[in-house]
């Protein structure tokens, strides 16, 4: 290949990369324009902040899921794990299982928001770790382990809560779900900080490099001296941690932890990651993409509701747009390849 050709290729590569990462973003922008034309109040700050708050729960889990999918894994248990962590947080916030029936929010008997938060993320991370160990030690595929986890965690949640919700938290805890800093909802700020941290970890740390390597080629990673099993376990710990964090925020927002929380979240979360351009085969993807993917889903849902589109039609439209968004991204990538 001549040098000129190579440079040509390089120029092409840069444009291509830009467009590639912009694929879902372009699609998102188009959606926002359409919804704004349909109903200009769509871009009122209040609605935009609503959207950021709404996507922050699944968005947080999607950050963790990005790590998992980058290693070519998957976690179907996140919805159930969210419910489980939320219930644990509620029990702690209420000061023990005995008080869970009380709806009082005085909170004097409880252990406070910090203990609740800690409990949620520790339980989430531990549950993720156990699943990670089952995957690496028992050699059971992630799909199966986390499918099992999906039903196990739901069963555990129902068992501790006996089917009912645990409600009524004190104001300091509720602030994490409903508070504002300036005009910005607290959940959105938590999500933004978490996203930036994840981006830094994946992009600029040794650990992040290892995650990509394991997902890109596990055998080559092992032969390059990476502790593949440890890294695999760690990504399930991370997604579990985020499920716990999301559970805490959700409970704080609803002022209640419900046994039925998070049903079907796994699919929303995985959609966000995949729409954002992360490959289910591992090794390719980014946190930025996931944020865009989560935003795309959030905007779509909110926009359709905003226009009072019937729920039946909503299902149809969301399904089609999901496919189209990914098809558009593929098409862009195939147009300007490398």
């Amino acid at each position, binding site marked *: 290949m001549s040098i000129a050709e190579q440079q040509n290729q390089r120029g092409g590569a840069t444009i291509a990369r830009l467009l590639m990462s912009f694929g879902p973003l372009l699609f998102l922008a188009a959606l926002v324009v359409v919804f704004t034309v349909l109903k200009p109040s769509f871009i009122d700050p209040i609605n935009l902040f609503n959207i950021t708050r709404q996507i922050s729960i699944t968005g947080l889990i999607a950050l963790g899921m990005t790590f998992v999918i980058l290693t070519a894994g998957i976690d179907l248990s996140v919805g159930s794990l969210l419910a489980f962590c939320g219930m644990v947080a509620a029990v702690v916030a209420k000061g023990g299982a005995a008080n869970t029936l009380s709806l009082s929010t005085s909170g004097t008997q409880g252990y406070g928001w910090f203990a609740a938060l800690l409990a949620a993320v520790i339980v989430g991370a531990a549950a993720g770790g156990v699943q990670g160990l089952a995957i690496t030690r028992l050699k059971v595929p992630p799909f199966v382990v986390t499918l099992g986890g999906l039903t196990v965690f739901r069963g555990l949640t129902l068992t501790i809560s006996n089917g009912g919700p645990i409600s009524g938290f004190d104001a300091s805890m509720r602030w994490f779900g409903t508070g504002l800093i300036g005009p910005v909802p607290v959940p959105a700020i938590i999500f933004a900080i978490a996203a930036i941290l994840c981006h830094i970890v994946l992009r600029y740390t*040794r650990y992040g490099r290892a995650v990509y390597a394991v997902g890109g080629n596990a055998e080559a990673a092992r032969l390059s001296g990476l502790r593949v099993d440890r890294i695999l376990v760690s990504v399930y710990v991370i997604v579990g941690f985020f499920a716990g964090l999301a559970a805490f925020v959700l409970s704080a927002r609803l002022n209640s932890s419900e046994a039925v929380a998070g049903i079907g979240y796994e699919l929303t979360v995985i959609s966000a990651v995949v729409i954002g351009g992360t490959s289910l085969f591992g090794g390719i993807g980014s946190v930025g993409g996931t944020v865009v993917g989560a935003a795309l889903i959030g905007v779509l849902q909110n926009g359709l509701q905003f226009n009072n589109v019937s729920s039946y039609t909503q299902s149809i439209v969301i399904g089609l747009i999901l496919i189209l968004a990914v098809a558009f991204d593929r098409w862009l990538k195939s147009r300007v390849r*490398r």
Partner: protein
Amino acid sequence: MPPEAAPVLLAVEGVTKHFAGVTALSDVSLDIRPGEILGLLGENGAGKSTLLKILSGVMPPSSGRITFDGADYAPSSPQDAKQLGIVTIYQELSLIPTLTVAENIFIGRAPVGPLGLVSWRRMEQDSRDIIARVGLSIDPMTPVSALSVAEQQLVEIARALSLKSRLIIMDEPTSALTETEVQRLLSIMGRLRQDKVAIMFVTHRLEEASAICDRMTVLRDGRLAGHLDRDKGRPIQLPRIIEKMVGRAASELYARPSQRAVAGDVVLSVRGLRTVRDPEAPHAIVLDGVDVDVKAGEILGVAGLVGSGRTELARAIFGADRIAAGTITLDGKQIAPASPADAIALGIGLVPEDRKHQAIFAALGILPNFSVASLGTFSNGFGFMAERRERDALSGFRKMLSIRMASAEQAIEGLSGGNQQKVILARWLARDPKVLIVDEPTRGVDVGAKAEVHQILVQLAARGIAVMMISSELPEVLAVSDRIVTMRRGRITGEMPGVEANEEKLMELMALDSQDALGQDAEDQAR
């Protein structure tokens, strides 16, 4: 009979192929007649595979014309080519790993019984005969994933030979084969030539090209560099080929590098190494008491036939496979690496034989591919990558190894095989290992790059690194080794200084391990 007497079977006229941003082929023309073996040669990335893929219907040309049997030929899929009797052995093996050898041979054409249902019995019997032709004696009901690369290559060849064909296209069919199998393939090709089958043959092993080809077409940077004919029936000489390929006279490829380090103390010492049959890889050779030493500053060549256990030896030392018995000593201290990570921490490096599956991260850029084994070196105490340092190191190696690449971000997939191999070498050099094991370091690498890799290995040894080089190419082993050991059936069968070795001596040691081995061999052959 001079091949010119027959009419042209396939003619390529002015074919050009563009990929996004790259012109892989530009105005290439060639032709081939029945009963002719045409060598297609060129450096890595010259466009050989691209041309062959166009001929076999994998991709269309951007422009140009192809005729087959005098008629226009524009296949839209491999199926179309197959129907015309054009059969291809691809460079990237195209077997289905999860299926058995028999099924791979009969893919898409399984023998069926009266009800149209597949007859497994007939498939097994027929495929046993077919693989016997290339000298394989494995059970045809073995899944392909259990075969070594060499065995897979033989299966692929066997499959191609079993198809009714008029033109066989072979893209580096011998890259994983040792001398014996190569000779067998060459003699089969000779027979096909008599049967008026045309063969298009790509290889980076110029000796074998010279031995078998009637004519050669040489590509350089996607363009036609010229055609070469046999000179009065005598084989085409290597210097002529090399000159056409690289565009200048190649002075001393394969010439023994001059300054050698004086070998120092023993760095790595292996005694009585045994492995057990691993249920995950039941066909793998079991090491049966291997003793070997590697000294600082020497290149130890390891020669052996396919399946002699060389790769297993490398993997066992590297902690990639479990060891049943024996000791490994590094710098006088006994070590027991339980994983590659342990071995690497101790100062051992391994460039594995299967680049695609075991070494490269295809989708990732060159930078992460380079630094993956030294993340600790290239990061600070908080675990953040020191990207400046990382890039500087890469550009150092880029100069030292003359790696041809566009940028550090470029996906490694886009590099030619030789350059990929250099990046993998750089990966290990960055760790400055005490012992570097390289397994088939020049597989699929063109003649120029091959010489460069050899130079690099010599330089490493000169820096005091103990290098162990496994290779199936005897000329390569002879060219760069200070000392050579031979293996057979999981045992060391001989040792000699590099200067005293020659092909005959090595072949003898590789083929024999005990008195009865000869008889056993004959039996193997007979099956």
